[in-house]
């Protein structure tokens, strides 16, 4: 049978192990955690070099991801802003909402297929998956703390020293192992089992509806130059004309080039149905509004992508039927198996 196990493989455990401490129960990861490149995907960028993926490392990473005690006021974890049911984006939050009710300036992006990304954040400022979390940890408006505080908390809070020992062979916690554990968790999040993937990998047994198929054709014509398959982003930076004058300078913050002002990373569209609101500042709360933007709202921003300027017309003209077909197609990018995968669940 050509049914491909392209995501984390579950091997049911024999007997559940519980490590107990006074205050909490830690359930070790009992399934075998693996990272497998889906057959319709290119090679991954993050290769777990110097950070061998292990069950203990992964489950430690997961525990850290969901531990609110890592934040300054002990209310916010990574999982507060990156929610599994929203593709690990932040549902209903235009911009991120951190400690002390502080509002950040950007929308929390989805977290999956991160192992294929070379750069992170809307402006590409972070250049290695392992170091990405430091920003959230230290941002006064996100977790509001610092690495030293977290490291000493982990060194003195049972059962962390033991968990670090299990994962990395030493119970002395340092920032490197903290970040490696988090990367084992985040890099392993792979979303590649949407209806779209099933159709692509096995067209004999899966097919699009007529609407979805129409939408797919339109998508390939009008959207795929930027939101390229199979990641649904070519990972470049450009402007899709949200504002004449972008308040957030975007990519320019990183490169210093005025030709990068107002450019943002082209986001993936996988699980897009679940990760509203949309755009770097979360300005649109529905896919209809996004498509209306492409149809009639594109502004002639100074660095507007040239492909969105066609003779006198800005943007991508779309009839209401076309919009509806596109949305039908976009919904085939929803990967329920990923969204409901217990491996990534807080539990």
């Amino acid at each position: 049978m050509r049914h491909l196990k392209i995501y984390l493989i579950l091997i049911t455990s024999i007997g559940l192990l519980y490590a107990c401490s006074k205050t909490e129960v830690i359930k070790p990861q009992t399934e075998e955690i693996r990272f497998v490149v889906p057959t319709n995907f290119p090679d991954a960028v993050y290769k777990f070099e110097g950070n061998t993926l292990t069950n203990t490392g992964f489950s430690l990473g997961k525990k850290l991801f969901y531990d609110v005690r890592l934040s300054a006021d002990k209310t916010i974890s990574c999982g507060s802003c990156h929610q599994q049911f929203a593709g690990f984006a932040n549902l209903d939050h235009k911009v991120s909402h951190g400690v002390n009710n502080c509002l950040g300036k950007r929308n929390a992006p989805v977290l999956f297929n991160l192992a294929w990304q070379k750069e992170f954040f809307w402006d590409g400022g972070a250049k290695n998956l392992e170091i990405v979390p430091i920003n959230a940890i230290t941002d006064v408006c996100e977790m509001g703390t610092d690495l030293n505080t977290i490291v000493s908390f982990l060194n003195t809070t049972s059962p962390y020293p033991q968990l670090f020992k299990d994962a990395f062979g030493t119970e002395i916690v340092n920032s490197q192992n903290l970040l490696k554990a988090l990367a084992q968790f985040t890099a392993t999040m792979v979303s590649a089992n949407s209806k779209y993937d099933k159709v692509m990998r096995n067209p004999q047994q899966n097919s699009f509806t007529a609407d979805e198929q129409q939408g797919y054709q339109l998508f390939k014509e009008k959207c795929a130059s930027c939101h390229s398959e199979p990641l649904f982003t070519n990972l470049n930076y450009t402007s899709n004309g949200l504002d004449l004058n972008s308040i957030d300078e975007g990519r320019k913050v990183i490169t210093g080039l005025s030709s990068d002002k107002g450019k943002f990373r082209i986001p993936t569209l996988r699980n897009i149905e679940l990760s509203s609101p949309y755009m770097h500042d979360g300005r649109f709360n529905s896919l209809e509004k996004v498509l209306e933007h492409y149809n009639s709202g594109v502004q002639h921003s100074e660095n507007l992508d040239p492909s969105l300027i066609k003779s006198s017309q800005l943007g991508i003209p779309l009839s209401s039927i076309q919009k509806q077909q596109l949305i039908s197609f976009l919904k085939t990018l929803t990967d329920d198996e990923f969204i409901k995968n217990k491996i990534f669940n807080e539990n």
Partner: protein
Amino acid sequence: MNIKNISILLFTLLTLGFTSCKKDEVINSKEKGSFTIEFENEVNGTPLVLNTQNYINANGDSFNISVFKYYVSNIKLTKTDGTIYSLPESYILVDASKPSSFLNIFKDIPSGDYTKISFIIGVDKERNLAGAQTGALDPALGMFWTWNSGYIFVKLEGTSPQSTATNKALTFHIGGIVDPNNTIRTFSTDFSTGNPLRIRADKSPQIHFTANAGSLFTGKQNISFANLNFTMGGANSVLIADNYAVNLFEFEHIHN
């Protein structure tokens, strides 16, 4: 002969003895030895005292320094015959507030007479892009940018009455690896052939450098704190890096 003359004679004999020994010495480069680099922080010739001491920059602006930290990495030693030995994993962070960081020992160096040293002021491109590091490169040491990820190569903070920033602050965080704002600079110096760095299994020579915090503000272009008092990467950081590339470090001497 009085005592003094006798001691002079003895000294001369001993020295001659030593020198002739050296001539015949066979250096076994399979043997390994160690050496130490010591950095003495100063500002234009006077020792660096954090917070309390006032200094004058080349432009005539007065200032004091509360933070002075810098990376030195990728140390290379060149032998008399031109062969180069690159010290593996050589990353050091000197922090003016931590005297223990001034003395840095390097072990397992092949024996030999080395007449040149070079190093990067900062951190190489690869490690700027790498995953989580530890030791001198631990991002918890406050020398790592998270929003535009990479290391701060040289960090100087303080105040100046001429600064137009809030609280008259001076904030010079120099880093960045992408052209045209690449601030990786290399320093190299020759030692005299008469007194090279002699690495031997049974000795641990010391190299002394001064590190002049004042060098950030002169060299290629004098800095006026009214015009420039804040930089975290970008074109102004390049200006500062080009300045300190000229004379942040000065080789003083070697104790063999």
